[in-house]
């Protein structure tokens, strides 16, 4: 469904991605794990069309998308939940959700999606008139995911959804991600919390300093001594 081939990307002088190649299969959860600064977020931003790439190709459903504007990529169904949630702090919960459906025209269906979000995350319904910035970390993560779902993604990119959350909340979030996959959405899950990600995922890539150093089935990665030592502690 998504294929990166030999993708390079730079921040001025920093060579952040050095020939990343990976594939995400339809209706699966693919994990991208790696230490801080390995290039995980850069990879997702490149897929979303925010971070320009200097060489390589990114194909979604067979079509190259690396030259498309971010909104065009969203229109095709690739939606990202960025690292640190990035809720709009001075917009209400409802307004945040409305923006997730920015490209959708049919008002009634958008309202239906909103109801679905409230069903999936009842706490958001309670808080719907509250400013996004007043939510707790866990609530903000739920809002960020709900907001992305408002765009009806075919591929959902999740950047460290467990970051800074209490273990109980992490478990809750992971449960939600599974549910989203079961609804037929393909997921690319970036995590530093390799344990949680690989337990949930089907397949995984390990990246170090902008390169893929390992790839395997999630179960195999969990048992891989190198992964165990470096990421599972």
């Amino acid at each position, binding site marked *: 469904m998504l294929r990166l081939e030999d993708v390079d990307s730079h921040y001025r002088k920093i060579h952040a991605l050095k020939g990343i190649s990976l594939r995400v299969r339809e209706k699966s959860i693919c994990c991208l794990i790696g230490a801080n600064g390995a290039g995980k977020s850069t990879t997702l931003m490149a897929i*979303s*069309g*925010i971070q320009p790439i200097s060489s390589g190709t990114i194909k979604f459903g067979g079509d190259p998308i690396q030259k498309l*504007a*971010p*909104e065009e990529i*969203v*229109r095709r169904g690739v*939606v*990202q939940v*960025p690292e*640190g949630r*990035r*809720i*709009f*702090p*001075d*917009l209400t919960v409802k*307004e945040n959700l*409305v*923006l*997730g459906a*920015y*490209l959708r025209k049919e008002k009634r269906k958008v309202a239906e999606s909103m109801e679905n979000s409230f069903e999936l995350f009842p706490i958001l319904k309670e808080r719907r008139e509250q400013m996004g*910035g007043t939510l707790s*970390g866990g609530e*903000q993560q739920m809002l960020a995911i709900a*907001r992305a779902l408002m*765009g009806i993604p075919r591929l959902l990119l999740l950047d460290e959804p467990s970051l*800074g959350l209490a273990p109980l909340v992490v478990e809750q979030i992971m449960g939600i991600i599974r549910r989203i996959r079961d609804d037929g959405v393909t997921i690319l899950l970036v995590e530093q919390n390799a344990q949680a990600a690989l337990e949930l995922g089907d397949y995984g890539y390990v990246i170090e300093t902008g390169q893929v150093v390992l790839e395997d089935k999630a179960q195999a990665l969990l048992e891989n001594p190198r992964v165990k030592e470096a990421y599972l502690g």
Partner: protein
Amino acid sequence: MESLLDQSSLFLQQLVNGITLGGVYALIAVGYTMVYGVIQLINFAHGEIYMLGAFLAYTMVTVLGIPFFAAFILTILICACFGIILDFVAYRPLRNAPRLAALITAIGMSIFLQNLALMIWGSQIKSYPRDMFPAIFLKPALSIGEVSMTWMQVFMLSITVLFMVILHLIIHKTKIGTAMRAVSQDKTTSALMGIGVNRVISFTFAIGSAMGGMAGVLVGLYYNAIFPTMGYIAGIKAFAAAVLGGIGSVPGAMLGGGVLGIAEVMGAGYISSEYRDGISYAVMIAVILFKPSGLIGRQIGEKV
């Protein structure tokens, strides 16, 4: 007793004049503040859009013979386009450049447009022909004792209030308005939502410039004087109003404009009319010194 009445009616008259003028400052100030809100740029050329508005309506009425109200509406639309073009030509290429580069470009555009107007219309002060609007405009609409409000003032104030309400509705009740607020808070995330960030910025320039151009026509009417450098002083005052209200805050710009208009008229009336312009500078400096976030501006805390 007599003089006490005189005193209070003088005060009320000044208040009426101040509010009318303040409304116009507010119209200009929202343009500064909205653009600052979305791209953190002080668009120094905004005062020139206001000046061009005054001249465009003038040319339409005197040269092309277009009726005033039609010219007024056309001017507003053309100024909206000017705003979009200004952004596209001058600022968009510098979106990722250091902020100082855009600021210098803004000053450059301001000087360029002033000189362009000078070439087209000359340096002489022009005035709208008195017969272009109904004579009733100069008659008092209501007068209580010594205090009166002309139809012109009623017209200016109602236009101002009407467009402030429209602006409020756009910003808070429409999707594009919600997108404007989102872009002002976080451009990358806005793009991740599928928002065309550049289109939203264009829209912001269009709205701000439309209101600026409208203010130009209104002030041209009110003072009956238009000239190529009129945007400079009005621009500084409106900018002071935006700073006073809290730069980036639209209600702040409205409040700041009102307060500044009243302060200016009162200062001119009670202290000395020579201080008229100085009051704006004093207000701006005082705000920057004592309350940089303005009356209703606030620091937005980052939450991880």
